[in-house]
Every structure is written in structure tokens, then in C-alpha cells.
């Protein structure tokens, strides 16, 4: 599988604006879904698919591809927007999100849509699956030179799940150094702020204590995301976790100012128009 083309930062930022428009447009059409956590994750996912990961959208199940597991499955509009932009499926399919018969399920379904690596949506599970994919790459290649890398995006609220901490314990022990976990730390969940519902405390330090290579970055700064992914790639013994500070609803002012409210509520037509004005194409 050939090395990916690295897209320059300015045009990537422009694409990110376009994909934010796509996310909001498909969610308004669907009438249900999760805008806040899709907008917080989009810069991370777009950057992964724009120079970091090796993949072929025309052959999405090619064996030697790098893999991305969206453990926070409710953020899938962001992944669909990136996949359409990269040519996994036609962009107009985005408007079938959540419709009966659509491959674009409300939460990711790998059997229906090639390019989705695992079915997720019940939180806490994707990181274990990603760990298994990482171990498979070491069997296919070697422990030192795994055949592929795997990336897993989790929500910060999701880190409350016990299974995440099982992987926190196991991945360093199993030597899953080709696994990079990214935590989309957007600070809010359905019932309130993460800090109020069930605080995570010193998250970076906790993962470091478990034996992970850790980084903390601004999850909307494409250069910072790229540098962190490179540092994770350069790490040859430990799994990596990148805690990405993000803003829920990033790019839409009225969502950024009510991050809990816009977790699982979609914009109506009027709100969509207002949001799109803030995201000039």
C-alpha cells in the first residue's frame, strides 16, 4: 500500500470547513444525530485520512491498509463526511444518513459500509477491537515491524467505561506500539459536563502510569495533530495516547456556547442556515 499524499495545511483547513457544512447539512436532513461530538472530532479524523493513514478508497478492504476505529460511534457523521470527501462513496449518499436501507447507519456498521472497520456505538468497545487489529498487524508482519497501524478515536465521556481501562492495562503489556488512541476531549456528555458527571482527573498522567506514550494537544490544530501522530508513529515500544483538547460544536458559535445542549440535538432549517453563514464555503 503506497504512502499517502500529504495535503498542505491551508487546503486541509478549507476542507475542514466544507466537511463541517456537510456534517450539519446531513444532520439537519436526518433530523437526529450528534452534531457537537462530530464537529469536535472532524479535524482529527480529516488529518488522519490526509497524510497519516495508508488506504485506498477504491479498495477499502485491502489487507495492508492502516485502520481507523471510531469507538465514539455517535460521532460518525464526521467520519462519513471524510469518507465521502476521500472517495469511499458518492457525496450525495451523505443525505441518506439514518434512512431505512442506507449504508450510513446512525452508528457505524462495518458489514454495511466498506471502510468502516468495526461496528461501534455501545461505548468503550472500539479500543479493544483496535488492540486486536494492532496485534494482528504484528502477526502479519513482525513485532518490530507490524504490517499496519491502527488508530482509535474515543470520546472523553467514553473513558468512563471500564473496558477502556482494561485496554489501558493490557495494551502496554501486550506491546501494542502500533496502536494510537486519540481521546476527543470535548468536555461534555449527555447529562452534563464530564467534570460534573464523572470526572476523569489527570487523564494524561493516568495513561502514563499505565505505561502509555502520552501527548496532549489542541485537537483543532492540524499541525499539532500531525506532529503528535508522527511522534506516536516513532514510538517503537509503547502504545500511544493523544489527549486532544477540543471544543464541542467547534465552528458554530451557538453550539460552542451550549456544548451540553448540542450533544444529541440536530439543527432545524433556520439554525442550519445560521450555522452555514459562519462556515463560508
Amino acid at each position, binding site marked *: 500500500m503506497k504512502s499517502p499524499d500529504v495535503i498542505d495545511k491551508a487546503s486541509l483547513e478549507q476542507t475542514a470547513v466544507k466537511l463541517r457544512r456537510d456534517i450539519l447539512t446531513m444532520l439537519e436532513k436526518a433530523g437526529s444525530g450528534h452534531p457537537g461530538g462530530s464537529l469536535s472530532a472532524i479535524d482529527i479524523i480529516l488529518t488522519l485520512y490526509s497524510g497519516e493513514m495508508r488506504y485506498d478508497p477504491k479498495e477499502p478492504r485491502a*489487507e495492508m491498509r492502516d*485502520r481507523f476505529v471510531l469507538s465514539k460511534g455517535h460521532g460518525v457523521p464526521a467520519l462519513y463526511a471524510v469518507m465521502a470527501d476521500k472517495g469511499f462513496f458518492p457525496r450525495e449518499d451523505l443525505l441518506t444518513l439514518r434512512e431505512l436501507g442506507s449504508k450510513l447507519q446512525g452508528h457505524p*456498521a*462495518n*458489514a454495511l459500509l466498506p471502510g468502516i*472497520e*468495526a*461496528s*461501534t*456505538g*455501545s461505548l*468503550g*468497545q*472500539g*479500543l*479493544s*477491537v*483496535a*488492540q*486486536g*487489529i*494492532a*496485534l*494482528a*498487524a504484528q*502477526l*502479519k508482519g513482525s513485532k518490530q515491524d507490524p504490517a499496519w497501524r*491502527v488508530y482509535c478515536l474515543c470520546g472523553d465521556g467514553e473513558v468512563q467505561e*471500564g*473496558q477502556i481501562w*482494561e*485496554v489501558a*492495562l*493490557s495494551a502496554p503489556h*501486550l506491546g501494542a506500539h502500533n496502536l494510537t488512541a486519540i481521546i476527543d476531549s470535548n468536555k461534555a456528555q449527555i447529562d452534563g459536563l464530564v467534570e460534573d458527571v464523572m470526572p476523569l482527573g489527570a487523564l494524561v498522567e493516568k495513561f502514563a502510569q499505565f505505561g502509555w506514550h502520552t501527548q496532549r494537544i489542541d485537537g483543532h490544530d492540524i499541525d499539532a495533530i500531525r506532529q503528535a501522530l508522527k511522534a506516536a508513529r516513532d514510538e517503537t515500544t509503547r502504545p500511544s495516547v493523544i489527549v486532544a483538547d477540543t471544543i464541542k460544536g467547534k465552528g458554530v458559535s451557538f453550539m460552542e456556547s451550549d456544548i451540553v445542549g448540542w450533544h444529541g440535538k440536530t439543527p432545524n432549517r433556520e439554525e442550519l442556515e445560521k450555522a452555514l453563514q459562519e462556515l463560508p464555503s
Partner: protein
Amino acid sequence: MSARLMIPSDVAPAATRKAFGSALQKLGATDDKIVVLDADLSKSTMSMHFAKEFPDRFYEMGIQEANMIGTAAGLALSGYTPFCCSFACFLTGRFDQIKMSVAYSEARVRLIGTHAGVGIGPDGYSQQGLEDLATMRSLPGMLVLQPGDDLEAAQMVEHLATDPRPAYMRLTRQNVARVHDDNYKFKPGVFPQLIGGDDIAIFATGGTVGYAVDAALRLHDAGVKARVYNASSIKPVDEKAIVEAAQQTKGLLTVEDHNVLGGLGGAVTEVVTEKHPARVLRHGVHDVFGESGSPEDLYKHHKLDADGIFDVAQGFYKSLTA
């Protein structure tokens, strides 16, 4: 069909988990896609034999069943064939992981649940898988198997190397009698008929099959021609055998070391109700929790041994002919 089994008398009873462990070790030598995961129970599930011979393809996951199941799914989605082993109760207790990461992700994980039912004995209910067949059967696309003896267990392991479906296999801690001869060949969706007879049909599975055979032979001697099927393929079930039994006999008796709700009893009843209504008596653990005791005492208590099945079957036949 003969009313007698043609099993050599020198074949010793064996636990299906032991047959699994040997077969898995053998399979590991010929198929390098086989990987094995266990959650601190490899000495009990018998995955230790594979672990010793193929340490690079064995993952000791510690006491982390949910993580083990997800990790197995990742290995399966990357082209490997993971056998994911624990006690039946601990595996199927992680139903959400099995539902999402295995079944809905179409990951070819082989979930191996050993220590099925009250047959494990003194450890009591917390270690007794009594709901696993019901829960695993409820997942679309899942193959659910329970061998009736050691020979069939080994054949199922070989079958699982190539079957495209996610699968659950349920195994016994205790020894069970051999009920198949060397010519037997396991096929999913087929219940091998072990004993002929047209008065009643007994569908037994897992640890109860050998006892059902003993009970049926005594029923024949007592004038009740009972036929016996080894219901080893819980999903898909053998609809043809069930319908034939409903047409040809006066009633169907299901026997399982599992709750009577949702397991073999449920599966047979569903087919009969829709395809050829007939009387069915579901026998097993009657919607109660398991308890401590020796395996023998527990099988006697729940009427799952040969005496118990004989009594239940005779009583059922009387009620059908009264």
C-alpha cells in the same frame, strides 16, 4: 435404526473441553491463522495445550473478558481465526461485547464457553452457564454448537477453522459418554439420530446426551419406543428432524443442562409451533438458579441423569397416551 449404540466398550467417557484442547492444539499445527485468547482460565478451558505449543499465537488476557472478546474481534477482522476461551457464564456475561464487537461486526470469533450448566458441580451458580444458549441464539448470524461427546467436539473445532460465521461452542467440565462411532461426521444444522423409535422423540444436548441414550434403551425395554437425537447444532437447528419427529411420534421431549427458557427447549418449541404443532415437554433446569453439589447429585436433583430422564420421559409418554 438399531435401538443399540455401536460404541466399543473400551471407550472411556471424556470431557468435551479436553477434546477441544487437544483438537485445538492439533489444528494450530496445520493452520497458522488460528490464534487463541484466554482470560486466566487456560488450565480449565484446556487452551493451555495450544498456549504451550504456539506461544506466539496465544494471548493471555488476564481477568478481562470484555477486553478479550473485543481483542478477538479485532484479530478476526484482520484475517485471523481467534478462539476466545472462558467459562460459558463469564463469556456470555459480556453479551454487549459479543453483540456489538463480534456478531454485529461480523467478526469470525470462536467463543468457547466451557463449564456449561449445573454439571460443573460444587462451585455453584456463579460459575454455571445456564443462560448461554438462549442469549447466543438471539444474535443474528451466530452459529451455536454443543457437542454430545468428545469425538464430536474435536470435529466441531475443525469445522470452526473454516466456517464463515461468528460462533459459540458450549463445552462440559465433566466427562460424558461417547455416543458416536468413528464413522460419524458432524454437520451444522443436522441432529444425528442415535436411537430409533416412534413413540416419543428425545432431543438431548451436551452433557445429557449419554444419559438420554441410557434412558431410551431402558424405555425400549419397558415398551416405550423412544428415539434419541443428539441436538448438537443449537443454531441453526435441524428443522427437518424436528418436523419429522413431530409427524412420526406422539410427543417431543427436550433435555438440556440449561434453563428450559430459550435454549434447546425454546428452539424445538419454536419450530414445532410454526411447522407442525405437537406436544413438547421441555426438560432441563426449570427456571431456577443453580446451586452447589456434586455433579452427580445435581444431575439427580434436576432429573438430568439416566434415571431422571427415564422418569420424565415415561411420565410424558403416559400423559400422551392417557
